[in-house]
C-alpha cells in the first residue's frame, strides 16, 4: 500500500524540482507561454487596405451564445458594407470562439489578450478599441 504512495510522490517531486516542468511562472515579470490555440479576447482584424476586414454581416453577433456582440452595418461612399458600430462586452464574453468560427471573412480572431481585469464597472469595447489591439500587434511586429 505504501509503495504506490511513494511512487506517486516521487513523480510529484520530480516534476516539482525540475525547472522545465515547474508550473509556477513569475507572472507578471515573466509572460506565460500560451498554447497556439489559446482563446483570449476577440480582436477585429485589419485588411490590406488598412481598414477593418469586417463586413458587418452580423453572423458573429448571431452566433455569440452570451449575446455580447452588437454590430450595426452601414454603407460607405464606395458602397462597401462596413460596421458603423461594433461592440463587444468583454465582461460577458465567454471566450468560446464561436464568433471566430462564424465569421466568413476571418475578421474576428481570439488572440492572446487575457489581461482584462479593470476597476471600471463596464468593459464594452468599441470598434476602435478592438481594432487597436491588432494595430498595436502590427506595430510590434515591425
Amino acid at each position: 500500500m505504501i509503495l504506490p504512495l511513494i511512487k506517486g510522490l516521487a513523480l510529484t517531486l520530480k516534476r516539482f524540482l525540475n525547472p522545465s516542468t515547474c508550473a509556477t511562472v513569475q507572472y507578471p515579470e515573466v509572460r506565460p507561454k500560451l498554447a497556439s490555440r489559446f482563446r483570449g479576447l476577440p480582436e477585429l482584424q485589419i485588411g490590406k487596405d488598412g481598414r477593418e476586414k469586417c463586413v458587418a454581416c452580423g453572423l458573429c453577433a448571431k452566433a455569440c451564445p452570451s449575446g455580447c456582440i452588437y454590430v450595426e452595418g452601414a454603407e460607405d461612399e464606395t458602397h462597401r458594407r462596413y460596421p458603423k458600430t461594433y461592440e463587444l462586452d468583454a465582461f460577458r464574453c465567454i471566450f468560446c470562439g464561436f464568433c471566430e468560427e462564424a465569421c466568413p471573412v476571418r475578421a474576428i480572431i481570439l488572440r492572446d489578450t487575457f489581461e482584462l481585469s479593470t476597476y471600471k464597472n463596464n468593459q464594452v469595447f468599441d470598434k476602435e478599441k478592438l481594432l487597436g489591439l491588432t494595430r498595436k500587434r502590427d506595430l510590434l511586429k515591425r
Partner: protein
Amino acid sequence: MKTVHLVIDDKSIAVPEGTNIFQAAIDNNIYIPGLCYQPKLPQFGGCRLCMVEVTERRTGHRFACAHPVSEGMIVKVNTPKITRYRKSVMEYLLAHHPLDCPTCDKSGECGLQNISYDLNLAPGRFKTTRMNVPVIRDNPLLELNRNRCVLCGRCVSTCKEIEGLGAIDFQNRGIKTVIGTAFDKPLDCSFCGGCVAVCPTGAWQDRTLGFGGRSWEFMKTPTICPYCSVGCTIVLNTKASPPRRDGGVDTVKRVTSDDYTGINEGNLCVKGRFGYEFIHSSERINTPLLRRDNELIPVSWDEAIACISENFKKIIAEHGGASIGGIGSEKSTNEENYLFQKFCRTVLKTNNIDNLSNIKSPFLNGLIYKSVIHGFASASLKDIETATTLFFFGADITEAHPVIGNMARKAIRLKGANLVIANARNVQFQSQARSDVRLRYALGSQVALVNAIMKAIIDGNLVDLKKVEASTNNFPALRGQLNNFDPQLTGISAETIKQAATLLTNNGNSYLVCGKDVEEDPQGKDIIEALLNLCALINAGYNADTNSARISIFFSRSHNNSQGVNDVGVVPGYLPGYADIENASSRETVENVWGVKLPDDMCKKDNQDVFDLALQDKLKALYIMGENPMVNHPDGKKVHDALQKVGFIVVQDTFLTETARKANVVLPSATFAEKEGTFTNMGMLVQRLNKAIPPVGNARPDWQIISDIAKKMGHAFAYASPKDVMVELERVSPAYSGIIYDRLKRKEFHWTSFLLTKNKPLKYTFGVIEPGVLNISVSKDFPFILLTGANLNHQGTFSRHTKALMSVAPECLVEVSRNDARAMGVNNGDVVIIESARNKIKLKAKVSGKVSEGMVFISEDYERQPVNLLRDGAYTPVRIHKEIG
C-alpha cells in the same frame, strides 16, 4: 366552383378546380421549392425548380406551378430522382452567382439561399467566372445588383401587372440576359418597391435600409400605413440595440409587406414602403414646449399640462366653454379622436370642434351616411378586385390611392374588368383594360354628366325600369328632370356617354370611387347626390338570380383616418356614430355612458367652422391635435388670421409645424409606430395598429395626453389603454357596435356591412337636383384656373420629414399644359411665378399632358409649399409668368 381532391406527399387535400399544384401546396402548407412562382403574379415557369412527380393516368414529372390539379392526382414533391434534378438546376443557377451572402441584405430570407441549404448543396462541378455586371444605383431608393438575379421574372411581372408600369424588363438574350430599364436609362418609376418585395434573391434591395440590419435581427410588427386612406398593412422591421446602449433602443429599420395580411396583398406605394424615416427624424419635438417671452421653451410634462389645465379652466370660467375650439386629427386613431371630442364636449363644454376633412366638405358625412343606410356603400375596398366595371369619378387613383389602382389592375387582369374614368384632367391610369372609357368633362358640368349617364341608362333600357319604379320613391320626377340637362355642356360625345352607361350596367358588381376633386368642388354636394341617384338607379334593378348590375360607391378620403375622425364624432353636427347632436333622444345613449347631460344650448351645429368663429373673436382658446391647418386648410389666409386672434393655442404634434410654431403650448405626440389603436379606411374598414416601438424621446400618444389633461382638470378619464376607449366607443356608437378590440388583431371590422346585417337598407328616394351655376371668374388678369390635388410621393407632415420621399420628390411642381407652356415660352424645370389675387409663389414648371389649356395644377400635398395661401375657393383664378432674371 368544383372541388378537386388530390394527394400531395401523402396528405389528402381538396382545392378548387383550375388551381395549379404549386398553389394547392401553398394553400395546404406543403413546401415545394420554387423561385419564380408567386401567387399574386401570372405563372412564368422560369426557374424549373418546382418539378414534382405526378401520377394521373400515368406517372411523370411536371412543373408544379404550370400544371393544374386533377381529381385523384397523386403528387410526390421529393423523390431521389427529383432531388438530383433539383440539385443540378441549382448548380446552374449558382454557377455565376456571386455568393456574397455576408454582404447581401437578403441573406436569411433568400429563396436561393434557403433552397441551397435545404438541398445541402456542395460546391458545384463547373468552373465558372462570377458574373460581373454593374450594380444599378441611379436612384435613391432601389438598388439592382443583377449579378444576384436568377431571372425569375417576378419583378418584371409585378411592375407590369400590378403597378401597370413596365419600367423594367428583360434585356438582351441568352447568357447575356439581364433585368434592366429600356436603353439603360435611370429608373424612373413610381417607386412602389414591389420589385423588392417579390424578388426571391438579393438582386433588388431597399436602399433606405443601408445595411442597417440583418433579416434575422428584425422584429416584424404588422401595422397600418400612416399616409392615405386605403389602409394598407405595412410591416415595420425594428432592430433592438442591447440594453447597455441607452437602455436598449428600438429602431424602425425598414418596411416590408405581407401578402397575406390586410387588404393590400403585399402591394404598397412609395409612401407606405419608404416613408417611415420620420419616426426617427431628428426634427421631432422631444419635450413639451411652453411659450415664454415669445419663445417656445422646453418644459416638463407636468408643467405643460398644469399650464393647459389652468388656462382652460380660467377661460371656461370667464368666457364659457363655447369660447374654446377644437380641431381633431385625420391622422390620429379612432380612440384618440373619440377621446378628443369627449374631452371637448364634457370637460371643456364646447361643441366648436371639427376636423379638416369636414371643414373642406361639410356635406360629405351626411351623404356618406345616406349611401351607407341605403346599402350603396357596403363594400370593402378589397372587393374592387372582383369588379366588372370600375368607375373613377374625379379621382386621381394613381396619385391619391395607388394601391386601389393595384386592386383595380387585378380585377382587369383576372376578371376582364372595364374601366370608366371621369375627370377634368387627363389623369394617368395604366392598365390593360379591354374597355377604357375616359370622360373628360368640363369643369362645372359634372352633374350634367352624371345625369346624362342616367338618361342613357334609362333611354337604353339598360336596367329593369319597372323594378326601379317599384322599389324607389320619386323616380318619375327624376326622369322628367333629366331632360333639363344639356349633355353638350360636358364636352363629351353622346356615344362615349352611352358606352359608359353600358359598361356600368354590365352584369356583375361595379365599383364607383368618388374622388377628392368632386368632394371639394363647390358643387360637390350636388354631384354626389347625382351619383347616389345613379347608384340607386342601377341597384334598384338588381336581380340576384341573373347577377345583374350592381354598383357600390366609395368616397375618397385623404388621410389614413379621415373616415374615422368623422365616424367618432369630431364634427359639430354628430356625436360618435353619426348620432344627430341636435336630437335630444339620440343624445341619450351617449349621455348615459358618459354620465353627463349635454346642455341643449351647447348641442348646436354651427354652420360656421372653428376658424370663422375665431375670426369673429368668439374663440379665446384653440386645441389642435395632430393637424397643421396653416398649410392644410384650403384657405391659408383665414387660418393665419384666425390663429392671430386666439389668445391661447395648444398644439399636439410630432413635429414643430407651422401651426405648432404659433402655439402657446406644444405637446410632443407619438407616431403610429409607437402606439396602439385603430384606423378606419375609406372603405369603412376598422383596422388595428400594433405598437412596434416605445414612444421616441419624451413623446406620449395622443390618447394619453388627452386623459392627462382631463385628469388634471378634475375629470375621471380612467383609460389604461386604447382598448378601454374602444370598449366605451363600442357602447356609444351605433356604427361601431359589434366591434371587439381583441378580435381586430386577427380580423378587421367592416362597420358598414355589420350595420347592414342588423338593419335592412332603406328604400331610396331620388332627389331632384338643381345645381347652381359654377362661377369660375377667370379674367384677363388671371387667365388660368388653379387646380389642386393629391401627389403620390407626399402627404401631410410626415412625408416631408422622410429623407427617402424628399429625395424622390424634392420639389413641388406646377403642371402647365403643353400649349400654354409653348405660348409662354416655359420649358420643363423653368421657374415660374404663380400669382392669384391674394398671394404669389414661385415653383418649377412641369409641362404635362394631364392638364387642359387654361388650367394649372399644383399638388397640395407638399406641406412646405403653402399653396393654400393662393386659394380662396376650390377653383382660384391665377396668372403665371416666367421668372425674369
